[in-house]
């Protein structure tokens, strides 16, 4: 990654941030000039309290009417970026985006990462439904939904899975029946992340029960404040979770909210799943960095060996084996990213990222609880260290890694059929 070059003395963030209008159009300057100008603008506008607060890829404000920003500075940072169109730098300016290129967007995100600044806004609006509407929506839908997304006014969730439609998503049964200018929707969605905090849901519904599987499905946008929509959070083996069930009882939704054509929503859904897979794959690549150091530190505590060679040959072997696999995995991620430069399709090695990344994450936690031994048995309270309690929860939660976002079994099917050419 290129270093951010900021003139000396300008690195101190201002607390009275106020957007500065760029002197030249970003598209007319070189990428290097843009990098310098963008860094300057960010340093001028990002509130001091936000520096260094970003740890994970999904850190940041998720927007919406139900969850206000956690601080005034978060709100101020969002407002500054909205003003410049930088919550979605490469979306069209007339819809509230920045009108920049993908490269410009990457530069901005590199600068934010380097300064450990959270992005002004994150979520499924920016990452999933926004790109989908830009590709498949009509003008009215874009005008109605994109500006609230880029301003962080509306938070979206994804209504795909159902109790009877998991890996076999196309067997979904939530019904939408046409009635005048509306569809009337009945059914249930499940595994809907943050449904209880979201304002709108994009959902797959069955509009033609007689058509075969994929053919009778429609992609529709539903305002969650509509009468008949309710949510219930799901408790996991690891405790509370962002997942919810969403119930639809006689929910009236305007037919104008259908994205693409009625009965042809599968095409839209597949494109959107593509956005989701790349998001999860990238997250996997980013999250696998520090397992070895963490495991060694745990082993030193558990084995009472503050320095030198660990007294357990088995533990050494297991940590080293995992660390090697993680290093090879991270190189594979780099290979995929490198292979996709210049807009090329990802190589066959990209197919293994989800299945390998999720399994590695599980192995890391499996090994950690094994090393922690008796300290891994806690659930809550103060009989166990907070760090160990969260390890146990994370270990349980990691069992879901090979299920969510396409089970490992489905991923292996895809590799076998599409990469290995098996019948």
């Amino acid at each position, binding site marked *: 990654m290129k270093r951010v070059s900021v003139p000396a003395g300008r690195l101190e963030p201002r607390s009275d941030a106020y957007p500065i209008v760029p002197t030249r159009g970003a598209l007319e300057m070189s990428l290097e000039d843009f990098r310098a100008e963008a860094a300057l603008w960010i340093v001028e506008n990002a509130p001091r309290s936000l520096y260094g607060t970003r740890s994970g890829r999904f850190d940041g404000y998720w927007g919406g009417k139900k969850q206000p920003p956690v601080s005034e500075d978060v709100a101020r940072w969002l407002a500054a970026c909205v003003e410049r169109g930088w919550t979605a730098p490469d979306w069209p300016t007339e819809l509230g985006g920045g009108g920049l290129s993908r490269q410009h967007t990457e530069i901005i995100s590199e600068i934010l990462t380097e300064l450990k600044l959270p992005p002004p806004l994150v979520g499924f609006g920016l990452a999933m439904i926004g790109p989908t509407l830009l590709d498949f929506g009509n003008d009215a839908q874009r005008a109605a939904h994109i500006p609230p997304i880029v301003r962080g006014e509306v938070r979206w969730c994804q209504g795909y899975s159902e109790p009877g439609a998991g890996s076999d998503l196309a067997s979904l049964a939530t019904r939408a029946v046409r009635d005048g200018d509306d569809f009337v929707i009945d059914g249930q969605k499940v595994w809907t992340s943050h449904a209880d905090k979201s304002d709108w849901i994009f959902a797959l519904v069955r509009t033609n029960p007689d058509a075969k599987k994929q053919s009778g499905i429609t992609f529709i946008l539903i305002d969650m404040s509509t009468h008949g929509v309710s949510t219930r959070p799901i408790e996991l083996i690891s405790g509370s979770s962002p997942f919810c069930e969403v119930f639809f009882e006689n929910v009236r939704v305007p037919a104008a909210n259908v994205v693409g054509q009625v009965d042809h929503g599968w095409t839209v859904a597949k494109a959107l799943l593509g956005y989701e897979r790349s998001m999860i794959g990238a997250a996997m690549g980013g999250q696998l960095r520090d397992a070895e150091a963490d495991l060694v530190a745990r082993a030193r505590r558990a084995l009472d060996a503050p320095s030198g060679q660990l007294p357990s040959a088995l533990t050494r*072997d297991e940590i080293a084996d995992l660390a090697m696999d993680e290093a*090879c995995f991270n190189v594979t991620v780099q290979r995929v990213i490198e292979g996709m430069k210049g807009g090329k399709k990802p190589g066959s090695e990209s197919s*293994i990222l989800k299945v390998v990344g999720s399994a590695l994450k599980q192995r890391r936690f499996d090994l950690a609880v094994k090393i922690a031994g008796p300290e891994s048995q806690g659930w809550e309270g103060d009989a166990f260290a907070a760090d160990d309690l969260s390890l146990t929860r994370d270990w349980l939660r990691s069992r879901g890694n090979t299920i969510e976002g396409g089970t490992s079994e489905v991923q*292996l*099917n895809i590799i*076998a059929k599409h*990469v290995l*050419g098996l019948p």
Partner: protein
Amino acid sequence: MAFSLTEDQTQIADSARKLVETQAPIARLRTLRSQPERWSRKCWAAMAEAGWTALCVQERHGGLDLGLTELALVAEAAGRQLAPEPLVSSAVLFASAVQLLGTHAQRDQLLASVADGTRIGALCVADGGRYDAPDRGCVQARIVDGGFIVDGVRSHTLDVTLADTLIVAARGPNGAVTLFVVDANATGITRTPEARVDGRDAATVRFDSVRLAPADILGELGGGLAQLDGALDRGAVGVAAFALGAATRALELTLDYVRTRIQFGVAIGSFQALQHRLAYVFAKVELARSGVLTASRAIDAGAADGPRLASMAKAKACDALELAAKEGIQMFGGVGMTDEYDIGFYLKAHRGLDTWLGDSAHHRARWATLQGY
């Protein structure tokens, strides 16, 4: 670090694969295994002609001065057909040891002929090529009349039967190990060929009062085996690349078989029980490929983590080969157990490749040591 191949590298890989497929197909192993010479001089000459033996030798010694990245490409191609020629022994291990430790005179004398393939060099420094077992001190050097007399036995030593020059490790009276460059045909050296599971050239080497001069010392007097670390890391990446090629090919053979083998009226490759396991093998092979790519580039760049990544590449590539070969035999079924089918060669090759230069467990332990735990 860039992992995609340059145009030149792609060309090297393509022509290497073509050379191996036309001149060194795996079928030859069936005749070579019963010949006194376990590899083909004709194939070796073709490999040398193509520049393989010169890849890791400096230009002023007649080499191409390319790196392990390029060497790994040709070793991978050789591994696909399990070519038994002493590429890693001579062009990587021996060449690197002389280049890294040799005096001007030794480099001038040895490297040009290694680079053009006319000299075969091999290491004779540890029983069975193992660096993870304690040295049993079976080869001893005494100091007599300002020179050395070497006695002892070294067993299971790869690629020495047809070698011209050996690097021998011998323990002196004070317990310290010294490396020597020795003419393989010197008086007092007898090489008794061994019959190996992988059919490769190996011998028990006996030293009976072999006289050596101070000028034959490679590196420092009493400098120890650790002097070879740099050469062994390069060799480990060479072996890893060879194993990667073998694993890739074993998987291909198995995929071809399950696509065409009909049972219960369908190709057995349509069964999910096999598909998932093959997809898993593919994932292991791709991870190992990443390991070889990053280790070879790190060593070429002189990166501090080169040794650790070389251990990773060796362990991961050999593990991938083991899995690909075992799953291959299982999926071939009964015919996989027959000598008539090639898949069994890959499992036999794994036995030798895994042990050579330290097995996977050794390299994991080394990784842990290098990482400070």
